[in-house]
């Protein structure tokens, strides 16, 4: 990236955030939307009181919280009383999974059964595994095709099994952007009378929420709201029981004092993103299409993942064979481009990306590019120019450090 375009983290001339032109990690955190920032500053002054009290400051905070709830509920397509604000998307997912399952578990009929696609966010898979460990609930993880799209027939068959208490399918995948067949999964779940959790974390604010969910979760920082606001929506007709000690807040679903200023900012950002979606969607979609077409053309042995058409407008992941993902992220950062990677050597664990593994795709040397709403054509052009020499340089370094002639081992005795 040209010198000076990413000026030492200072505010950009538009006066909003410190994101540089090469910030391509919107799927981790979209820079705060300017309208959210204005609302946040106002709400810090006016919405700080405890909305559960009866005095005037409390009533003002309560009013603001109600407005935010109505506005987010309208955007996501639910009733305000179905929607609770949580402290993160992960907390929303944990509450959704635990509360829906525990409402339907019974001592006499056993711990039951859950279904989740193999490419769900780790919050979903970890919550399911936690229930398995603690309550003995069986968990069926269903497969995806090579594009990362859930196998609906397998998902429906698993949901139809006896004593299935919950099925979980994301709206779209957070790593490769593939849109999931939620409508078909919802039909199957309705037939089997199984509640469906749709984790809309990757798509909320970018695409309309698909119909057919029983429980819905999302995270505000991915649509340009502040960190620390998640969404949990539970249909009036869906049974849910608080899995934690009781608390009166947020429809008795979420413990603790809600963060009114940040919730207001999250609501303002969602409204703004939704209004801008028409113009933004096409522009981002075209930039991602260019990355998808150009990377394999310019970088030898690079593979682009996910569905080329049925995808989120702003996300793409590709893998470069023989490249260490950590080195790639570090070198791109040095060149002014902020991206993420699901390679095992970059993540906290040694396990490779469970999404790419489920797709049977290469798990090393991968880069997720996720464009923020303000991504420019020229920044993407610069990225596509910078990438090939960086990959070539890393390949040289890695190959030089690789043993060329390992000794052939003696054969094992059978």
């Amino acid at each position, binding site marked *: 990236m040209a010198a000076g375009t990413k000026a030492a983290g200072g505010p950009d001339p538009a006066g909003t955030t410190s994101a540089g032109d090469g910030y391509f990690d919107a799927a981790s955190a979209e820079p705060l939307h300017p309208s959210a920032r204005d609302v946040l500053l106002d709400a810090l002054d006016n919405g700080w009181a405890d909305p559960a009290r009866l005095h005037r400051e409390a009533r003002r905070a309560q009013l603001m919280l109600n407005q935010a709830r109505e506005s987010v509920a309208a955007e996501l397509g639910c009733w305000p009383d179905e929607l609770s604000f949580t402290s993160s998307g992960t907390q929303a997912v944990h509450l959704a999974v635990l509360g829906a399952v525990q409402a339907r578990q019974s001592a006499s009929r056993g711990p039951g059964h859950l279904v989740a696609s193999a490419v769900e966010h780790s919050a979903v898979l970890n919550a399911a595994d936690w229930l398995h460990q603690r309550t003995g609930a069986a968990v069926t993880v269903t497969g995806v095709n090579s594009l990362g799209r859930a196998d609906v027939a397998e998902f429906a068959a698993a949901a139809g099994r006896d004593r299935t208490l919950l099925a979980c399918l994301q709206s779209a995948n957070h790593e490769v952007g593939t849109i999931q067949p939620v409508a078909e999964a919802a039909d199957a779940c309705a037939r089997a009378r199984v509640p469906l959790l749709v984790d809309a974390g990757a798509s909320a604010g970018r695409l309309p929420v698909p119909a057919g969910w029983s429980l819905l979760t999302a995270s505000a920082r991915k649509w340009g709201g502040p960190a620390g606001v998640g969404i949990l929506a539970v249909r009036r007709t869906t049974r849910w029981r608080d899995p934690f000690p009781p608390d009166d807040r947020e429809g008795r679903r979420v413990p603790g004092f809600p963060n009114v200023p940040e919730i207001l900012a999250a609501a303002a950002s969602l409204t703004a993103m939704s209004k801008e979606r028409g113009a933004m969607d096409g522009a981002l979609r075209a930039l991602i299409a260019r990355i998808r077409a150009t990377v394999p053309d310019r970088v030898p042995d690079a593979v682009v993942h996910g569905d080329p058409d049925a995808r989120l407008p702003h996300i793409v992941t590709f893998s470069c064979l023989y490249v260490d993902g950590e080195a790639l992220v570090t070198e791109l950062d040095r060149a002014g481009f902020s991206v993420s990677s699901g390679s095992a050597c970059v993540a906290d664990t*040694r396990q*490779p990306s469970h999404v790419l*593994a489920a797709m*049977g795709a290469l*798990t090393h*040397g991968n880069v997720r590019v996720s464009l923020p709403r303000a991504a420019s054509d020229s920044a993407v052009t610069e990225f596509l120019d910078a990438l090939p020499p960086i990959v070539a340089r890393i390949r040289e370094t890695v190959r030089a450090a690789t043993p060329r002639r*390992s000794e052939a*081992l003696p054969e094992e005795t059978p």
Partner: protein
Amino acid sequence: MTPSHRPALTLDALGKKCPVPIIMLADRIREVPIGQTIEVLADDPAAKTDVPAWCTLKSQEFVGANDRPVGWSFLIRRSY
């Protein structure tokens, strides 16, 4: 392992993190005759996905994987 699956060459990538096992495989598969197999020993969990994915990308035949006391043994047949 059946006799027809006895590898013509075994590469020891134990203790090496991806992508090193794949680089070793790509470098040395041409040392075995077409139709013969090469074995890769590795213990990085990423290899479980990456060896078959490499075979698909490079149109080589992934024969299978076997658990070992440490890591896995992957068998690949050179197809061209």
